[in-house]
């Protein structure tokens, strides 16, 4: 189907046709405009920007070598951090599971519960752990209770959303089969749904525990317990070398947490 005249003339090819070109350039242009606006409008003192590498380096040298004298206090604070993360993850399970059940389209009793479930999950997820911590410190005062509640409230959204998606993605056939035997709703859930979502459940819990360890390290900065309290204290005193030790301890905790979670994942899934 080739036109002879066309064959003789130069055959042109370009990667994008006219319309696509326009759209691409449009996007580049819009992004460029946005960047220029953002940079000009933002409240940055430019001399500080050029000085930044210098400043970062000077801070780094003030933090060297790390000061280990307070390591006892650091160690118990780290333990406290781990407790906060672990306890809140455990407790969250009891709330997140029912919420995920009603937030999943295929298992929710009715529209109202569906929206209620979704609302709970969205509000939980949209408010950062630290902001929850601010709220709970205002209510219950500084201390680990505020921290545990903060991590719990944030984790509900995370676990609930992922579990809800896991529930929505199950194979319907076992459910039908169980219903056909005349089992009640609860039994159908127990036999047809729970076994299918078990692997996802463990993966999600392990993942969230890992994230919660990281989150718990900073709760103390607003007074909600854990290593963050020590960190804030040292920063206030400009004790940079102690700060360095605390940061090292946090890295160790994170690495240990990652190692433990990958072992757990291999064994359980």
């Amino acid at each position, binding site marked *: 189907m*080739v036109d002879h005249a066309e064959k003789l003339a*130069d*055959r042109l*090819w370009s990667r994008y046709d006219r319309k696509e070109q326009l759209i691409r350039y449009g996007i580049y242009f819009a992004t460029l405009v946005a960047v220029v606006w953002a940079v000009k409008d933002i409240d940055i003192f430019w001399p500080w920007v050029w000085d930044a590498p210098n400043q970062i380096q000077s801070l780094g040298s003030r933090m060297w070598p790390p000061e280990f004298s307070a390591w006892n206090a650091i160690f118990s604070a780290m333990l406290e951090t781990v407790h906060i993360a672990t306890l809140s993850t455990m407790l969250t399970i009891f709330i997140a599971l029912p919420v995920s059940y009603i937030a999943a389209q295929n298992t929710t009793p009715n529209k109202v519960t569906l929206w209620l479930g979704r609302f709970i999950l969205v509000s939980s997820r949209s408010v950062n752990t630290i902001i929850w911590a601010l709220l709970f410190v205002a209510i219950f005062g500084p201390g680990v209770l505020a921290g545990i509640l903060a991590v719990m409230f944030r984790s509900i959204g995370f676990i609930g959303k992922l579990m809800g998606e896991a529930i929505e993605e199950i194979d319907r056939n076992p459910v039908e089969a169980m219903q056909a035997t005349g089992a009640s709703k609860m039994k159908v859930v127990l036999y047809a749904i729970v076994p299918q979502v078990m692997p996802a459940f463990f993966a999600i819990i392990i993942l969230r525990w890992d994230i919660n360890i990281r989150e718990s390290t900073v709760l103390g900065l607003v007074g909600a317990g854990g290593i963050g309290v020590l960190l804030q204290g040292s920063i206030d005193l400009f004790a940079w070398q102690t700060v360095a030790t605390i940061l090292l301890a946090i890295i160790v905790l994170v690495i240990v947490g990652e190692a433990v979670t990958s072992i757990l994942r291999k064994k359980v899934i």
Partner: protein
Amino acid sequence: MLEITSLVKRYGNNDPVLEDLDLTVDGSSVVAIVGASGAGKSTLLRCINRLVEPTSGSIRLNGHELVDLRGSALRHSRRRIGMVFQGFNLIDRLTVMENVLSGRLGYVSLFQALTRRFPQTDIDRAFNLMERVGIAHYADKRADQLSGGERQRVAVVRALMQEPQILLADEPTASLDPKTSQQIMSLLQSLASEMSLPVLINIHNVTQARMYTDRIVGMRHGQMIFDGAPKDFNQDALDAVYGGIESPEEDSDEPGKQASQTQEASA
């Protein structure tokens, strides 16, 4: 002309996959390499363009030694060797035209490659070749929207865009249905004579090997045990190459064959 001398490929301390292989391919012949899975066919082909590193031996293409090349010299030699793969190996998310043009990557600059500004001569050649194999109307379609036979044709055009001195085809039809594989084999055969190009084809299907090639090389356990005209590749040769226990894929319309109809797993 391709001259392979004393080619050996050994992985670690295991038995060699290729053992002291000699092969010469002239001019514009179409050579079929047959053998069971694990006989070393794929390794042989990949040693030629150094996707696999030979352990020892010599491979000369038109007088140039290929085995010790590195860096840009190696890339220069690769662009002269066209390869067609069993899995087509097209860039799925790019269009047919881009896939075809990617055959010129050994010739254009990095900037041209990045911005897709290929020389007009390349674009003309692309259109001509695509028309020749019948896929020109797919030029702007994404490669993963084509059927298997069409994709292999794109792959053939890509290889030809390199203006190669030799074409290697590693089981080009193993993923295709019988009718389409015949089309591809026939295409390779005609292109070889139209462009005076030597072609080496790894193939399972002995019937097609006989029908579309000028010479059959049989390999077994890394050694060449048959080298001759298709008409001389008789039942004895077949047994020697395949060991008589498993039989290669045979077309069901072959009268008088005693071989069983078992499918052989691909290499």
